[in-house]
Structures are given as structure tokens and as C-alpha cells.
């Protein structure tokens, strides 16, 4: 997924993300040792190897599209968030060093996005959802699926911000292309995480880390946060619909206003959506093409290595 290659980020962003991820991972290392102790080493090793192997698999969804597993939330539900960060970091590290999947200079950024934000943000979402719905087995799995989707979005958002801050892409374009494609890729992530956890739970439920029932205070915060988020979303939608020029500018830049692409999304354009109207349709179209191109490129890149 969002493995940024070298050459796309500026020096300040490289430095900043390296510092941020180092700090976070140092904390994760300490916390992980406290919670897992001596058993840590082989468990992390096996999980790292598994994630690495699973990330190379194609899960066909039909019509030539396939899903790939990132595994941030999956790993966090099995070994906990801190060990999870270390596992994903190890995977990202090996991918960058051995397979050039993601740049070496960009390692700090990729580690921050995937290991810290992907796992941390995903796990936080997981606990948030659990606080809203409770900790029964099916809820745990549904919460994990939702969290997996959100973690994909967060990874995309982080990458978009880094690209924009590096002056590589304008912010709106980065948002549409990168976050948009992750919004689609996240569906596969959510499906796979849920499916795998369900099967694991059915045969060996003990493997999924026991989740403490959220406390009253935790649930209070969760509901509060949910209400605030809803409010923010409504305000943002209202704002976007009354000022479609941001999207419009991006579409104009792409030069696709009069193209087959927008004609293809035409049926949606005529539908007066409450948010953004035809620009949402075009944005979706761009995101879809980008996601398709992205996954095709990665597929070819991987096929190129399978010799």
C-alpha cells in the first residue's frame, strides 16, 4: 500500500517523520517488552514472517481486482498494539531494505504511516468501537474490520499530508488520489481482517488477545467522540457542498472535465448528492483509476521480483 519510494519527500519531512517514528517505536519497544516479556521474540518473529508472507498474496475480489492485506489491525488484535507496531515496522524495514518496496530515506515516513499510525490509529479505533458496542466475539471481529478500514484511511491521509508538505503534490490532489485510493483499498483490508479473525476465532479463540471490557469513563469518551465526529462531518459536508471550487480546481488541472471519465460517472453527476454533487463523482472516478493503476503497478513490481 502506501510505501512511498525515495525521491518523493523533502528533507524536512524525511527528518521529521524519522524522528517521530523513532520516538514512537522506542516507546513501543519498551511497552511491548513489559507486556510480552520473554515470549516476545519468537512471537514477533512468527507474526512478522506471517504478515510478510500474507502481504504477498492476492485475494481475488472479482473483475480483475484483488485485495492485499496490510495487517496492522489484524496483528494488533493478536499480539497487542505495541508489539504490533514492532511487527509492522520489521515488515516495512525488510521490504525497504531487501525488496526496495518503499525507499530507504523514506523509511521514517513509511514506518510512521504504517507501523505507528496504521497500528496505533487502527487499534485506537478498535477500542473506540468496542467502547461503543461491547466486547462479545462477533463485536470484536466487527470492530476490528471497521478499525482496519479506518487504519487504511489513516495511512493514506498520513501519506497524503507528507506528500503535500514535501511540495510534491498539492494538498487537494494528494487527498483525492492517495486517500481516495486507500478508501477503496481499505474495503479489502476490512474484509480480509474480518474473515481471517472469524476463522481464527472459530478454531482457536484464545489466540485473539483478550480485550478488557471498556470502563464507564472510556465509554463516555467514546460516545462523546462519536457525537463530535458526526457534527464535524456534517459541517464539513455542508462546507464542501457550498464551495465545490477545491474539487473543481483539481478536476480542471487533471483536464478531465470533458473526458470519458466524467461521462462514465455521469449517472452520479445527475444525481444531486447532498455533498459536492458532480465533483464527488469525478473525485471517486479519479480515486478509482488511481487505485487501479497503483495496484496494477505494485502487482507488476512484485511479479518482476518473482523470478
Amino acid at each position, binding site marked *: 500500500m502506501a510505501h512511498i519510494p525515495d525521491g518523493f519527500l523533502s528533507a524536512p519531512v524525511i527528518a521529521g517523520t524519522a524522528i517521530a517514528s523513532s520516538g514512537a517505536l522506542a516507546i513501543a*519497544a519498551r511497552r511491548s517488552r513489559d507486556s510480552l516479556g520473554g515470549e516476545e521474540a519468537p512471537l514477533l*518473529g512468527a507474526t512478522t514472517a506471517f504478515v510478510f*508472507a500474507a502481504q504477498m*498474496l492476492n*485475494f481475488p475480489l472479482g473483475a480483475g481486482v484483488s485485495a492485499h492485506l496490510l495487517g496492522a489491525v489484524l496483528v494488533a488484535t493478536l499480539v497487542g498494539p505495541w508489539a504490533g507496531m514492532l511487527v509492522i515496522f520489521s515488515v516495512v524495514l525488510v521490504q525497504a531494505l531487501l525488496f526496495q518496496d518503499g525507499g530507504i530515506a523514506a523509511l521514517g515516513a513509511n514506518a510512521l504511516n504504517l507501523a505507528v499510525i496504521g497500528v496505533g490509529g487502527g487499534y485506537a479505533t478498535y477500542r473506540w468501537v468496542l467502547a461503543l458496542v461491547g466486547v462479545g466475539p462477533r463485536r470484536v471481529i466487527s470492530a476490528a474490520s471497521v478499525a482496519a478500514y479506518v487504519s487504511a484511511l489513516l495511512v493514506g491521509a498520513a501519506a497524503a499530508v507528507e506528500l503535500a508538505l514535501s511540495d510534491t503534490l498539492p494538498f487537494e490532489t494528494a487527498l483525492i*488520489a492517495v486517500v481516495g485510493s486507500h478508501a477503496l483499498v481499505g474495503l479489502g483490508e476490512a474484509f480480509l481482517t474480518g474473515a481471517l479473525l472469524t476463522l481464527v476465532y472459530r478454531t482457536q479463540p484464545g489466540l485473539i488477545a483478550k480485550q478488557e471490557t471498556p470502563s464507564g469513563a472510556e465509554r463516555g469518551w467514546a460516545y462523546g467522540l462519536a457525537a463530535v465526529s458526526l457534527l464535524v462531518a456534517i459541517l464539513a459536508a455542508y462546507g464542501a457542498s457550498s464551495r465545490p471550487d477545491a474539487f473543481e480546481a483539481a478536476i480542471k488541472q487533471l483536464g478531465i472535465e470533458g473526458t470519458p471519465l466524467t461521462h462514465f460517472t455521469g449517472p452520479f453527476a445527475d444525481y444531486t448528492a447532498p455533498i459536492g454533487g458532480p465533483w464527488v463523482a469525478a473525485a471517486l472516478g479519479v480515486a478509482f483509476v488511481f487505485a487501479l493503476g497503483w495496484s496494477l503497478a505494485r502487482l507488476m513490481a512484485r511479479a518482476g*521480483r518473482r523470478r
Partner: protein
Amino acid sequence: MSFRHLDQFAQVYSPITAIAPVLRVIGTVAVALAAATLRLGAWAQLGTLAGLVLVLAVVARIPLPTLLLRMLGPLVFVLFASVALLILVPGEVVARVGWISLTDNGLLRFGSALGRAFTALAAAVILVSTTTFPEIVQALRELRLPHAVTTALGLAYRFLYVIVDELERLQRAARSRNAGAGAAKRRRLLVSVVAAVLRRSLVRSERTHRAMLARGFQGEIVSLHRSRVDARSIALLSLLVLVVGAVTLSSYMDL
């Protein structure tokens, strides 16, 4: 598995393999950083760094066609991303291809990103071709990465082979039991195979832990490797770092 022959040049003696792995890693990081942070449009410096890396490849006794072949996979993705920059970055239009308008900024970023990525990529491929995986893990250990990470990586090597072996076996068994199944069924089979392998991996890690304890494991893997860092290698590395650093810095001066 695709990574079996990656480090074939590690067995070949060259001035590069004579240098301790940890220094090779530092050198690669230095070159990658220098390439990645070159100022946009600094074509002369970019050419210099790219040339330097190609020279390093020759010194490492890696034939250039082999080097390029190994870079091909990642390059495809880099190309896609660079083309995205070409099309998506706004600026003054300088050309039109079909319905796509190419801007000056887009071209600048396209060329810079592609060039910088290419150079950094070449450095990484040289490293991985001349250094075995255990050597890389040892280098990371010497660079003081968290023990949890280096130990996990050290164990992951064997785990990966065992896991991939299991994946292939289970997949073959599932496929032979369900020949001619539709796409949806095949996907469900794959998911159940992966889930089974996940379960087994976690159980296997517990058994491995026991085996480690039985042989006195205290929490950290003590390495067999001894550090090969000597003064000459450090001098060479410092020279490399200075040179690439100077090239990159010069790209920011008064051009």
C-alpha cells in the same frame, strides 16, 4: 521463493564485500538520503550521484544489466508514481499530450522524482546483492535497533520458509480437493488456508519459544558474528559520506 538468489554477489569477493556489513548499510543509507534530498531540478548533481552509484556497482562486481534487471520491479512502481506527478501537479502548461496538459512543475517533479528514486534504488540493490540477510540483521543489531526487532527479524527468516512451505502445501491440498471451483469459492479457500497458517504460526512460535528456553534463552539472541569494522573501512565510508553529502549540499547553493 523470490529472495533465494538475492545475495548471490555476497559470495563474490569485492572491495564492497570486504567492508563490514554495518558500514555497507550506513553507506547505502547515506547515498539514498543524499539522492532523495537533492534539490528539484539539480540535474548535474543527480547525474553525478547516479554515476557514482553505477561505479559502486562495478566495484561490487555486479554486471550492470543484472543491476538494472533487479531494479526493474520497484522501478515500475516508481514510474507510475512519477507519471502521476507529471499529470497531477499544477503549473504553467508547456505541452499537451492527448487531453493531458503537462506543466513545467509537473515535468520538473517527474524528472527529479524519477532520477532521485532511481539512484537511491540502485544503492539499495547493490546493498542487498552483496549482503546476506543474516549480515543485514547483524548490521541492524550493531546499529542499536531495538532487540525486539532484530531478534524478530533473525527468527523471521526461518519462520518465513516454514510458513511459505505450509501455505503452498495447504493451498495445493485445497485446490486438489476443489478442482474447478468458482472465483468466490477459491477466495474463500485461500482465506481459510491463510487463517489456518496464521493459527499454526502462532502455535509454532510457542513451541519455538520452548525450544529456545530449553537451550538457555534469556530474552535476547546473542550473536555469533564478530564486528569486522576496521580503520580503513571507516575511512572509506567517511569519504563516501562526505562526497555524497557535498554533492547534495551543492545542489542547494546559489543555482
